[in-house]
């Protein structure tokens, strides 16, 4: 299970942040936002070996002592980031990939919601509980 998930808009502004342990929210926010540079680098067309893969899932971005970060960028340049505890060895790349795909699906549904204005932060409680379910592996 992952510890944190974030959605960052195309202009790099935070849209949604969800953390299993609310006490650590701020420190995870720092980690997530600092990974945006790496995502930018991977997407840069000038950087040959990185931009070859056309998959939306970017894979492992970088590791810290306590956690690992994974990235996913949609065709509409919405960035999804998942933070996993470094001690967690049971989660494989494929599990993370399917987690991202589920979050992306939820996001696409969210954008189709007439009460949600695209580009605004997401405040829906239902969305929040679904994403929590996805990252804890209960959905």
């Amino acid at each position, binding site marked *: 299970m992952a510890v944190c998930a974030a959605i960052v808009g195309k202009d790099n502004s935070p849209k949604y942040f969800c953390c299993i342990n609310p006490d650590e929210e701020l420190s995870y926010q720092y980690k997530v936002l600092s990974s945006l540079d790496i995502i930018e680098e991977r997407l840069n067309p000038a950087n040959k070996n990185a931009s070859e893969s*056309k998959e939306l899932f970017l894979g492992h971005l970088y590791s810290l002592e306590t956690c690992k970060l994974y990235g996913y960028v949609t*065709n509409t340049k919405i960035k999804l980031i998942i933070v996993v505890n470094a001690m967690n060895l049971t989660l494989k790349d494929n599990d993370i990939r399917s987690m991202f795909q589920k979050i992306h699906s939820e996001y*696409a549904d969210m*954008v189709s919601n007439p009460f949600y204005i695209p580009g605004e932060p997401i405040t829906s409680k239902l969305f929040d509980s679904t994403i929590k379910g996805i990252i804890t592996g209960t959905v």
Partner: protein
Amino acid sequence: MDDGTDILFDLLHFEIVNWTDRAHSEEKDKDKKDEDLSNLEYIGFSTGYRLIERLTKEMPRFKDELDTMKFICTDFWSAVYKKQIDNLKTNHNGVYVLQDNNFRFLSKMSNGKQYLEAAPKYVAFTCGIIRGSLSNLNIHCVVKAEVQSLPSCKFHIQIQRT
């Protein structure tokens, strides 16, 4: 496959066109007519903007602008209009022309010149949908439609580079 679900979209679209049209039907003012068209175009814009997130979900990342345009002509057009664009032309410098020889919203009208002047309000929504989709894919553009003879229609897409 005609199970009545396809026709719903057509009917809804015709009603939206009628509704925006009726708002100022009494007035002969040309500005107001343009306002109706721009309302209609805006409805299309926000539809396209929201729709594209769903349609590109399973797609690999687009390589470049032309790749995106091909997606619009094939997958996107099939999803919305149940057919593909018949012809795509480009000058490789930011101008794309999409030609649909049997455009869905015009195909129910009798051919010929009789209803030609009614055509603009039936293509405004589509202009908006194209503009909205491309805008969410980070391609900012101006979309114009050209109807020379029903039921074919050409969409001119002019990319705005800044």
